[in-house]
């Protein structure tokens, strides 16, 4: 059935409408006046019945124009929501049934449906465009009565309201589903509306935030600034944006948001209220911060590199100074040595015993000074050259060092036992110096009671190599350990053991040069053990 018009059935006034419309439809369909009246009477009867007993009923007028069926019918269908209506059916229905060609009454779970069909004679003339015309003639139909007019307006209004409700519901559903806060707010900064994300994110309803002025969700130190910003921009009546951290209710974290607010104005430009959004831009901010940190880190690195450069330069200058100073110190020293030697050779007979003694003291003082400067030169030279690591057989270095110390070793009847040492990458000259210094010390600081015995051996522990120089000499008190490796530090008087206090400082410098360490252990009178630890990749 194709619908042409519909009439709600509420009061007796509607019966008049039913009658008039049915008559009109009959007229349009080309029924005789008698037939029009018959169809109208039948429809009115049914309508009267449902107005009396039914609930929320409607009459739909239409046409049944099935292409396959040569016969066409005017239709009047009444829908009623009272499911118990059939019980009330009485003769009026029976009467209506007699007036029409077709009659049906169906009961559904929603209510009852009564359909009347009235055959249209000469129906072949009815084509679909005609039906369209009928539909429009009903919709523009002049109101028959003020009641009809009100009723129609009412219906339109109801339809509009329904559409509005639908679209608002839809809008709310959409905005509530968005992971951003959408709101409207008045000039006082009071929320008028906010989507559900506000509560979901902040844990507060709009009215709660209006009461607490957003205090719990804005950082304490930002609170005053944020409001100041608001008042300032509201006064300007133009859209504005601001980044602000809002506290997330579930995590307690402050998350960066971009707040955008735009004024809504009336036709004369007065601001009615403001609408806006708060979007989570935390990832972006974190990234910005990371980039900034990264930049700072890079700048810091540059600064550090600069400092290292400066340090290296000043270190180098210092070494150059030490070298030049000791170099120049040698010159006058050589003269003193030469003249005292000359004096001693040619004029010793001319001076008395005390003079000779003093001359001798002067010469030995001079010798010590010479030795000191010589050692200092060697010490400062450790960094002086472009060094290259060379895979070196440490056994050979040990042998060379022992050859250099041959005189001292023989003089002290020292036993030196070198166990199989590894082949590792070292700075050979420096490492040989270290061997020489440590072996020389081991022989020098010997106990009068026994001939020096020195053992040199290696141990591999994990990824480090330890070279151990063990002696049976006088040893030392371990509280002096740190002091021992400093420049010019001596533990013994010059009378007892000669030396400049540079040897172990040099060893430490050489160990450092190899990214290694040197330490020692001892008990006075029980010999000493010097341990050089080198990374095995060195």
């Amino acid at each position, binding site marked *: 059935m194709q619908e042409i018009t519909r009439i709600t059935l509420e009061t007796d006034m509607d019966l008049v409408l039913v009658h008039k419309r049915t008559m009109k439809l009959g007229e349009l369909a080309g029924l005789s006046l008698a037939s029009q009246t018959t169809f109208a009477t039948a429809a009115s009867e049914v309508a009267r019945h449902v107005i009396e007993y039914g609930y929320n009923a409607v009459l739909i007028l239409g046409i049944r124009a099935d292409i396959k069926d040569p016969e066409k019918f005017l239709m009047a269908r009444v829908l009623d929501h009272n499911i118990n209506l059939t019980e009330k059916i009485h003769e009026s229905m029976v009467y209506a049934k007699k007036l029409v060609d077709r009659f049906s009454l169906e009961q559904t779970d929603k209510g009852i449906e009564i359909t009347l069909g009235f055959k249209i004679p000469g129906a072949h003339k009815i084509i679909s465009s005609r039906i369209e015309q009928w539909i429009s003639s009903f919709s523009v139909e002049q109101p028959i009565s003020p009641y009809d007019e009100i009723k129609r307006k009412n219906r339109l209004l109801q339809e509009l309201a329904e559409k509005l409700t639908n679209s608002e519901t839809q809008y709310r559903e959409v905005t509530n589903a968005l992971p951003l806060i959408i709101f409207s707010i008045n000039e006082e900064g009071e929320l008028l509306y906010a989507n559900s994300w506000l509560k979901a994110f902040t844990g507060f309803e709009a009215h709660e935030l209006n009461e607490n002025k957003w205090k719990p969700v804005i950082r304490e130190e930002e609170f005053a600034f944020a409001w100041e910003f608001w008042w300032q921009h509201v006064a300007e009546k133009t859209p504005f944006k601001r980044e602000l951290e809002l506290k997330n209710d579930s995590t307690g974290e402050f998350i960066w948001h971009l707040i955008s607010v735009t004024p809504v104005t009336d036709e004369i430009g007065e601001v009615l209220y403001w609408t806006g959004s708060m979007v989570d831009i935390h990832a972006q901010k974190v990234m910005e911060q990371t980039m900034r940190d990264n930049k700072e880190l890079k700048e810091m690195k540059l600064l550090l590199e600069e400092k290292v450069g400066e340090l290296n330069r000043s270190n180098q200058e210092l070494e150059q100074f030490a070298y030049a100073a000791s*170099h120049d110190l*040698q010159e006058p020293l050589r003269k003193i040595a*030469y003249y005292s*030697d000359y004096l001693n050779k040619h004029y010793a007979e001319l001076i008395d015993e005390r003079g000779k003694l003093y001359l001798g003291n002067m010469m030995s003082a001079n010798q010590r000074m010479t030795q000191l400067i010589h050692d200092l030169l060697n010490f400062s030279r450790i960094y002086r050259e472009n060094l290259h690591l060379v895979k070196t057989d440490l056994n050979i270095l040990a042998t060379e060092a022992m050859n250099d110390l041959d005189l001292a070793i023989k003089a002290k009847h020292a036993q030196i036992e070198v166990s199989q040492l590894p082949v590792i990458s070292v700075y050979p000259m420096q490492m040989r110096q270290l061997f020489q210094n440590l072996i020389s010390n081991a022989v020098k600081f010997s106990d009068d009671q026994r001939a020096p015995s020195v053992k040199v051996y290696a141990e591999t522990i994990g990824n480090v190599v330890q070279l151990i120089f063990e002696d049976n000499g006088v040893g030392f008190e371990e509280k002096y350990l740190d002091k021992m490796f400093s420049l010019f530090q001596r533990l013994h008087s010059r009378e007892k053991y000669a030396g400049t206090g540079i040897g172990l400082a040099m060893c430490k410098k050489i160990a450092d040069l190899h990214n290694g360490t040197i330490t020692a252990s001892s008990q006075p009178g029980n010999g000493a053990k010097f341990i050089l630890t080198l990374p095995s990749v060195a």
Partner: protein
Amino acid sequence: MDNTVKILLADDDVEDRFIMQDAFNAINLPEVPLLVEDGEKVLEYLSETHRNAGVLPSLVVLDLNMPRLSGTQTLRELKSRDAYKDIPVIIFSSSLNVIEMHECKQLGALSYMVKPFTYEEYLLSAQHFYDFCLNKHSFPEFNSLINNFK
């Protein structure tokens, strides 16, 4: 005594020059050393001798640290001139410096010596200089000096 042997010694230190002369006197060769006070004087003496077709010294001994023209600069000058490049040059320094040693070797010096600390050593040095001129002594080569230094 072969009086044609001349050794040109340059040192800005007046005491060193005196000591050197003293040493040559002590070994009875007072006429052998020609002592000048810096590198410029070395070049002046050589060009004058050369111009007068005189006999060039058999050996030049240079102190390193001299004002105006240093030992190495003088050495470079000498080795760059055909007339002098065959004159043997010994560097006579107050201290041992392996970098300077390398530089002097590169520039073509014969040898590198550290100035003595005793009278006896000075006498020996003077004798060696003289003997070298008579082909009776040879100085250690640089490579062995540098190796010793290590």
